[in-house]
């Protein structure tokens, strides 16, 4: 039960952060990606602000024996660069540039009654399903 409350709280703070930084606004994101246009560097500072907190925080937390409410840290053992990682990231960036939405802001926009975001989230789930099918075949 405590785990669920903390996960909810974490999500809530994430939603506030996306809203305060205006990353819920896809035009703001496209303004960052449009480097040769009227460039808006805000997204870079969102990442800088997040990493300034997260980098020392993760470093310290990883030296703890285990999380406060679980028995282990859930991290992928993968370390190799491979084709699915880079090809997948390239496709994701293409879709991000076409829309201005990455998954977090797209999902958060559902709370704002944004019909466009509803189509976006449905399309994301179609992509998830196709990727699941694709990776089962290979």
């Amino acid at each position, binding site marked *: 039960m405590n785990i669920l409350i903390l*996960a*909810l*709280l*974490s999500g809530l703070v*994430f*939603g*506030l*952060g*996306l*809203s*305060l*930084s*205006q990353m819920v606004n896809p035009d703001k994101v*496209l303004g960052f*990606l*449009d*480097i040769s246009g009227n460039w808006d560097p*805000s997204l870079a*500072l*969102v*990442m800088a*602000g*997040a*990493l300034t*907190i*997260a*980098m020392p*925080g*993760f470093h310290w*937390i990883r030296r*703890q024996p285990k*999380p*406060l*409410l679980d028995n282990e840290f859930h*991290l992928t053992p993968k370390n*190799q660069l491979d084709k699915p990682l880079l090809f*997948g*990231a*390239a*496709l*994701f*960036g*293409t*879709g991000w*540039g076409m*829309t201005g939405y*990455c*998954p977090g802001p*797209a999902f*958060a926009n*559902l709370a*704002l009654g944004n019909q466009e975001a509803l189509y*976006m989230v449905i399309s*994301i789930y179609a*992509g998830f*399903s*196709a*990727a*699941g099918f694709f*990776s089962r075949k290979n």
Partner: protein
Amino acid sequence: MQNFTPVSALLGGALIGISTLILFWFIGRIAGISSMMSGLLTASGKNRQWRLAFLSGLLIGAAIWQWLYPESISLRHDYPLSLILCGGFLVGFGTRLGSGCTSGHGICGMALLSRRSIFATLTFMSSGLLTVYLIRHAF
């Protein structure tokens, strides 16, 4: 650069950083939103519940902000639906294949200095920049 909002960007980013630390410190999980979204379909039991709780919190956080500052949020209209549908599909397909998105790779993975996440972030940033350049300036 008249749209640049450095203070709210840094502070909002700091909140996102705090959010990822809460999740990792208390329950040992990475705040990767593409994985949480796809996990709603594929995971079960406790593995599904914490994802559902986080995503519910994400909706509540965004809704609280809209309630407090309704004038700060303007929804986009008349954006081509074909771009949303195709782009959304690529976002879903690409984040599954590439094991993460802006939150999981770009923030958590980078904060952990993961080699995979650093290269994934450089890759999706580059293809995002290229795509917007092609859409806005090449055609």
